[in-house]
C-alpha cells in the first residue's frame, strides 16, 4: 500500500483517531491536510509527527460545519497540492461518553440531536460537496466516514450521538449510490470504543471490562486499530467497494 503522490484530507485530525489516521497515511508517504477546529498546538504536533514518518503534512484550521470555512479549507488544499484523492470525515461535535452521566431519552431536547446531526451529517455533506470538483476531474476518489458500532449495537444508548452516526451511515450509502457512476467511492468505518482518546478518557474500567468480555478479540480498540481499515478503504485494494460499513470493534458486532 503506497500513498506516495496521494493527497489526503482528514478532518478533526489534531488528536485521537484523526491524528492516528493522519500518521498512518504519512507512514505510507502521503501528503496530508490535518484539519482542526481549535487546538493548533496538537495539530502542529500531528504535522510534525507525520513529517517524521516521511509524509508531507500541513495543518489547516476550519469549522467543518461552516460552508465558507470549508470552501476555504479545500481551496487552500488545492493551492498547496493541486488535488484531493481521499477525504476522511472524522471530525464530530464534542461528546462525553459517560454511561453514568448520560442523558436519558426524556431528558433530551431536540437541540441535542440537532447538534450531533450537524456535527456528523451536515459536516459530511458540506465537505463532500466541496471536494467533489477535484475528485470529478479525475473520475476517482474515496470518501470515508467515521461512524460508530453503537449504530448496530447501542451498548449504551447515547441517543443523540448514535442517531447522528446512524444518519451518517445512511448519508454515506446514498452518496455512494450517487457518486458510483462518477467513479468516486464512499464507505464508512464503525469503530467500537476506542481508548485512549479525549472523548473516552473518562470511561470507567468496569465499562471497559464489560466491553472486553463481549469482544471476541478480547481487548479495546486503539486509535491505530482504526487507521488500518481507513487506509484500506482509501486505497486501490478496495477499488470495487462502495457503500459499505466496516466494523472495527474486535468482532463485537458481526455482519
Amino acid at each position, binding site marked *: 500500500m503506497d500513498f506516495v503522490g496521494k493527497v489526503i484530507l482528514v478532518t478533526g485530525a489534531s488528536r485521537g483517531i484523526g491524528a492516528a489516521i493522519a500518521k498512518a497515511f504519512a507512514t505510507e508517504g502521503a501528503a496530508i491536510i490535518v484539519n482542526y477546529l481549535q487546538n493548533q498546538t496538537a495539530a502542529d504536533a500531528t504535522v510534525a509527527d507525520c513529517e517524521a514518518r516521511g509524509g508531507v503534512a500541513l495543518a489547516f484550521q476550519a469549522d467543518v460545519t461552516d460552508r465558507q470555512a470549508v470552501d476555504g479549507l479545500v481551496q487552500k488544499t488545492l493551492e498547496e497540492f493541486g488535488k484531493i484523492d481521499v477525504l476522511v470525515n472524522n471530525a464530530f461535535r464534542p461528546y462525553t461518553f459517560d454511561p453514568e452521566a448520560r442523558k436519558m431519552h426524556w431528558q433530551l431536547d431536540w437541540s441535542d440531536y440537532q447538534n450531533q446531526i450537524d456535527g456528523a451529517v451536515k459536516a459530511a455533506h458540506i465537505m463532500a460537496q466541496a471536494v467533489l470538483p477535484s475528485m*470529478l*476531474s*479525475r*473520475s*476517482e476518489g474515496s470518501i470515508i466516514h467515521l461512524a460508530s458500532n453503537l449504530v448496530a449495537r447501542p451498548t449504551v444508548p447515547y441517543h443523540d450521538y448514535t442517531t447522528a452516526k446512524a444518519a451518517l451511515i445512511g448519508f454515506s450509502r446514498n452518496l455512494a449510490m450517487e457518486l458510483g*457512476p*462518477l*467513479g468516486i467511492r464512499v464507505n464508512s468505518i464503525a469503530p467500537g470504543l476506542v481508548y485512549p482518546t479525549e472523548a473516552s478518557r473518562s470511561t470507567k474500567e468496569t465499562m471497559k471490562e464489560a466491553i472486553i468480555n463481549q469482544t471476541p478479540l478480547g481487548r479495546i480498540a486503539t486509535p491505530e486499530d482504526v487507521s488500518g481499515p481507513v487506509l484500506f478503504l482509501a486505497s486501490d485494494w478496495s477499488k470495487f467497494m462502495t457503500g459499505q460499513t466496516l466494523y472495527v470493534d474486535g468482532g463485537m458486532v458481526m455482519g
Partner: protein
Amino acid sequence: MTERAGYLPGLDADALQWEAHNYGPREASLLVLLPVLKGEQITAVTQYVRSQACARLKTLPVGQIVDAIDLAVARLLDRQDPYRRKMDNLLPVITGYDREMVHLGLTGYLKTFRKPELQRFLAEDFTNPSILNDFQPLAKGGFGRAFGPDVLGHIWAGNVPGLPLWSLVAGLLVKAGNVGKVSSAEPLFAGWFAQVLAEVEPDLADCLAVVWWRGGDAEPETALLHQADLVLGYGRNESLAAIQSRMPITTRFLAYGHKVSFALVSAAALDPSRAAATARLAAYDVARYDQQGCYAPHVVFVERGGVVSPETFAHYVAHGLAALERKFPRGLLSMAETSGVAAWRHSEEMTVGGQVFGDEAGAWTVSYQAEDTAFRPSGLNRTIRIVAVDTLAVVPTIVAPFKALLQTVGIAAPPKELFALAAALGEVGVTRIAALGDMTTPEAGWHHDGRFNLQDLVEITEIDGRAEAASDRLAPYVD
C-alpha cells in the same frame, strides 16, 4: 509463431517472395509473412479468379451462395473452430486491441452475416433477389436481370478486425470474382475467411483471392485496377485520390473515404434515473476499437436544460471510460498516436470554458466544452469532446460545413425529436442514425455511407417489354 497472410489460388506459394512483418510487443510477438506480389502475379491471379468465377460462381443460384457464406460464418462463430481460435488469439496481437473486446466484437459482427441477415441484405437492395439468378418481370414492363462484375477489386484499409467481410460478402452475393488487397495493419482476417469458405464450399474456392503488395508500389495496384471490372476502395482521401488517378476510364471506382461520426443527447434523456446509463453507452461507443472505425463518435453534443447538466454528463462519460479501461484496456499506442492524443489534449485545454479530464496514465480523455461548440475531430484512441449546447437544433448548422465527411450520429432523444433531428441531419449529409451504444455496430443490410451495397455493384440487363412481344410473333407456336 509465424502466420502466412493472403489467399492465392492458382499461384505457387513457394515461388513467391514473402516479407516478414513483426506484430505485437516483443515478449508475445507474431511474425506474419506477407506475399510481395508484382504486377504480373496480380494479373495472373486476377485472370484465374475471373475464369473460375465465370465457370462456377456465376452458375450458382444466389440462395446457394447465401448457404455457403452462412456455413462459413457458422464455423467462425464456433469458438472451438481452429480459424476462430486463430482470430481470437492473433488479431489482438496484430491490432493491439484488447482480447476480450476482439472476441466479443467478432461474435457480434459475424452474427450479422448469418443466413437471415444475408437474406435481409439482399432484400434491402433487390425487391426480388432472384433477379441475380434469372430474368425477372420489372414493374415498368419487360424483364431484367442483375449481373455483378466478373472481377470486383477491393482495396481495404484500417485495422478494425473483420472489416473486409462487408465488401467480400457483397461481391460474392452478386456473383463476382473477388480480389482484395489487405492492409498491413490487419492482413490476416480476409485470408482466413477465404480459406474457411473454400473448405465449406469447394465450388467457391477459386473465386476469390486475398493479395498484398508493398505500400506505395503502384505497379501491382495498377495491374489490379486494369484487371478488375469494378473497384471498391477504402481509406484516407489522399490514398483514394491516388487510386482514382490510376483507374482506367472504363472501370468504375466506388470510394469509401474518411468519415466522422458524433452523438447527440437530448435534455429529455438527462434525468437522474437515466443519465448515467446513457453516458455509459456513449463511453462504450468511444472505447470500442479505440475509435478507429468511421462510425465512432468524435464529439457528443449535450443539451442544457435537463436535470443532469452537460458537465455532469461529461463526468459520467469519464467514469464510463474509466470502467471500460478496466474491462477492455485500450491498445498500446505508437509514438505517433501518443503525440496525436497529446496534441489534441493540448488544443482542447486552450479553449475558453473548457475542462479536460482523464486518468493519470492517459488511457482516456474527456474534454468538456461549455462555450466552444466547434465540431472537430477527436485525438482518437478514447478521446472525446463533450459540448454543451442550449438546444440540439443548432447542431446541424454546426456540422454542415463537414457534409462530405459525416456518417453516423448516435442519438438519445424521444421519438418526435429523433425524427426531427434525423431529417435535419440527413439534409447536411449524415447517412446513419443509431442509438447510443450501437454506433459502432451497423445492422445487417445498412446502407454504407448512404449507398446501396449490392445495387451499386450490379448492372441490369433489360429485355424491353416490346422485345418480348416482338419475339412472341416469331415463336414456333404462332398460328
